[in-house]
């Protein structure tokens, strides 16, 4: 077991971070129409045979969206789950297009910062069947 999995989660810190950006992030999440028009603009979506898991909207809904839904009351296992979404499924290239103007990269970056605040980040020695690229 790596050091990441032993250290306890500071949910108060997560809540503070979520609260600090609540105005912007919750509005972005709320006004997302779930139209999936952002899908085709993502290189990773197109490179992975149009797998919906790589859609920008899917990424933010399943990571930051869930964090706000749970109001920051999460455990380490949850953060490790979304780690894959925000690091493996996105390279923050900024190409994602949203007809409403939601800025997805900033949301992914914010989720990464929440993960990092709890010492959750991709480990170079992690065994995974998928490449980090």
């Amino acid at each position, binding site marked *: 077991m790596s050091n990441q999995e032993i250290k306890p989660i500071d949910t108060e810190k997560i809540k503070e971070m979520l609260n600090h950006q609540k105005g912007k992030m919750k509005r972005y999440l709320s*006004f997302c129409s779930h139209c999936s*028009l952002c899908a085709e603009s993502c290189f990773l979506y197109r490179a992975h045979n149009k797998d919906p898991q790589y859609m920008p909207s899917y990424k933010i809904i399943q990571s930051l969206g869930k964090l706000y839904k749970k109001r920051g009351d999460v455990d380490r296992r949850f953060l490790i789950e979304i780690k894959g979404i925000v690091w493996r499924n996105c390279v923050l290239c900024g190409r994602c297009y949203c007809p409403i103007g939601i*800025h997805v990269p900033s949301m992914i970056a914010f989720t990464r910062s929440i993960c990092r605040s709890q010492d959750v980040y991709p480990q170079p020695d992690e065994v995974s069947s998928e490449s980090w690229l």
Partner: protein
Amino acid sequence: MYDLIEGQLVSIAFIIFVLGLLYQGNQFFKLTRKKEWILPPLCGDMMPHRVPVVEKRVLIKTVVQYIIAGLASLKGTLWKTDPLMMIVTSVFHVCLILLPIFLLGHNILLDQSWGVSLWSLPEFFTDGLTIAVLICVAFFLMRRLFLARVRAITSFYDYFVLLIAVGPFLTGFLAYHQWFDYRIVMILHILAGELMLITIPFTKLGHMLFFFLYRFLIGSEYSFTRGSRTW
């Protein structure tokens, strides 16, 4: 009950609608600060080269030129990736705005209540536009059910909001053609309209306001203008 629904509830719905939009707009301006961002809009080659600080009238003229150029050429738009969706959503949103405002029935009620009204479109035309809206909603529903990428991010909330959006148009169509019990259908039509007005500021239907705020005021690669605001 009909008087309550047609009278006080309509006023309450409009008040909530207006106050809700004002609140959301106010929050947006409080949370975003003005900043001098010079970012190229989509058709960067259409923009004249300017010094960083742009006068307002020059900016307005440039924005108008940009919009005209953008409409004239669909380069860099959804026309390339999803043309059918682009057509359907454009038709849907145009009809969504035109119908309630220029419908003869609504203008007659306005005239009876307040003595003023807008000019109205012919009834056969508005009937056709309503059918167009219903077809567009059916397209959206099919997309949500059968396209994997849309289904992946769809939940009960999305179907519910779609129902809220189509409710006034479906019930209005039924009422106009006097299918089923007219009185009940009219009550449902008014309630559907009130529900839609109340939910616009607080659900994803709020993109009605935020589309313009985000795409015109926030500086980003896809901004329609040199967005000067940032979170």
